């Protein structure tokens, strides 16, 4: 009689262990960040006397005001433009048939598994040629290009799941294709769009290689992750608590968005993956 109960207890214990394991590194760096250098922290660094000094110091010395501004501008523009573009491509692939639609869609799918490693070299030299190196554009344009690929795939899946009858009825009522999209489908597309925006914003905020290559030469254009990388390289040996504080600052916006929209994130990444 008690065997299932023991089994259940073990199951939850194991699950809890893995969940703690997933969170622990984040907690440990937060603990470290709540100290200052003079605390000479080692080991588990339990914050008995939490201080915010390291956060203040990291924010100023790592010029994260600039980093956050750049990251927000780049991520916001990439997210909005990609979502609008993907609304169009997804609408076309999801509700219309036209010559060459299948190979063209396959071409978009390629973009999903694309590593930036494969495009960053010419991006550097081509942007240099046209004078866009070390500008926001050099980060925005390639990331729109890539996000459109995922967005197309994601929004197409949404539009294919909408009832055919709805679109047909609107068309018979004389609505133009644009009218169908804006008045009939868009109100329903909001959850799918929100998921897409959350994912694209996160990926763009976290992006590192492009920033390292394309805006390293312009301190005022550095993104938050790039700033963190430089700050860590210069500061880690001297004061790990400041680096920890900087890392917490950089992850904070994403963690907040994730906690608020976690259902969207998990659904987006899993559903996107399964259907892919």
């Amino acid at each position, binding site marked *: 009689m008690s065997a299932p109960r023991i089994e259940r207890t073990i199951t939850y214990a194991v699950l809890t262990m893995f969940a703690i394991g997933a969170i622990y590194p984040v907690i440990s760096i937060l603990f470290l960040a709540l100290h200052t250098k003079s605390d000479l922290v080692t080991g*588990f660094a339990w914050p008995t006397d939490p201080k915010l000094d390291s956060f203040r110091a990291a924010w100023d010395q790592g010029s994260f005001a600039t980093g956050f501004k750049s990251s927000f501008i780049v991520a916001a523009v990439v997210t909005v433009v990609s979502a609008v573009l993907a609304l169009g491509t997804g*609408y076309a692939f999801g509700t219309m*048939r036209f010559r060459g639609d299948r190979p063209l869609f396959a071409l978009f799918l390629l973009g999903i598994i694309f590593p930036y490693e494969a495009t960053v070299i010419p991006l*550097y030299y*081509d942007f240099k040629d046209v004078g866009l190196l070390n500008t926001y554009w050099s980060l925005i*344009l390639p990331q729109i290009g890539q996000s*459109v690929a995922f967005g197309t795939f994601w929004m197409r899946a949404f539009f294919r799941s909408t009832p055919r009858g709805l679109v047909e009825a609107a068309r018979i009522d004389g609505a133009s294709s644009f009218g169908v999209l804006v008045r009939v489908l868009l109100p329903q597309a909001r959850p799918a769009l929100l998921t897409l925006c959350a994912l694209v914003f996160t990926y763009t905020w976290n992006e590192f290689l492009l920033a390292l290559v394309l805006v390293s030469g312009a301190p005022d254009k550095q993104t938050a992750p790039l700033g963190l990388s430089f700050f860590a390289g210069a500061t880690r040996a001297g004061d790990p608590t400041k680096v920890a504080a900087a890392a917490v600052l950089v992850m904070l916006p994403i963690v907040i968005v994730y906690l608020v929209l976690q259902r969207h994130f998990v659904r987006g990444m899993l559903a996107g993956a399964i259907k892919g």
Partner: protein
Amino acid sequence: MAVSADAAAPAAAADAEVEKARRATQRAPGEPRNVAWLYILPGLAFYLLFTLAPLAHTVELSLFDWDGLTPGRYIGFANYREAFSDPLVRESFRHSAELIVFYALIPVVLGLLLTALLTRHPVRGFTFYRTALFLPQMLAGVVVAQAWVWIYASDGPLNELLRTIGLGSLARPWLGDFSWALPAIGGIGTWVTYGLCMVLFIAGAQNIPTSLYDAARVDGAGPLREFFAVTLPGLKNEIVVAFVLTTINALRSFDLIYNTNQGGPGTTTYVPSLYMYQNAFVYNRVGYAAAIAVILAATIFALAFLVIYLTGRGEER
């Protein structure tokens, strides 16, 4: 209807109405619709211009000997020949293969083990576990690197733990150790991806009809047989997806390596993307770097397509 009502109106208007009605019927779903191009072109333009064109340009650059400044020289496939015999390229890809074990194989096995434990009864409070398990996926590679540099530090939590449980002799600066640096990086990879695998499999297992489990139990199957006969086949798609995602993760480990060890100590944590970056932007061997980038991209594509092809998922589209 509209057409007949307008029959008495001037011919031009009637024709317009007829034309409109004809177009309306033509717009039935499934009919060819050239207006689709209007919606696709803006997105396609960005994708072509900033993803596909640079890719083609990388392939072109890989055929040149170029330092990034003076005019390049066409040398055919010489960069590729050099890359295939370059010991550091080979070592980098070998490291990537090892990282795949940590990023893909271990998390998938861990995920399956946990799922096997869980499928015997529904999980309550799964939302909480899911939120926690998924967190590592959300974090930037730079941030993950900082967290783990601290965990692995000489006086960091891992060594403290070892000393506390009496295994102090094992304590070491993990990332600075010639034989432990790569497995330590791999451990970070396992941490990043295991939650994804678990959530993927647990969610998938809940879609397996319980009747299959009942049938297995009626047949007297124990937990082990039940797992291999019901759970594993039922999770085929999820396992494929997990392997594709985590393998790609392993091959794209640039952010993590660059922000932890930068290939060191010695060359023990070199990976292709790091070596490519150094050739392109430190040693100014642009053509050679492009060749490595092409080999890396081809490897990622090949692995992804291989897994998808082997499981016949391509047919769905």
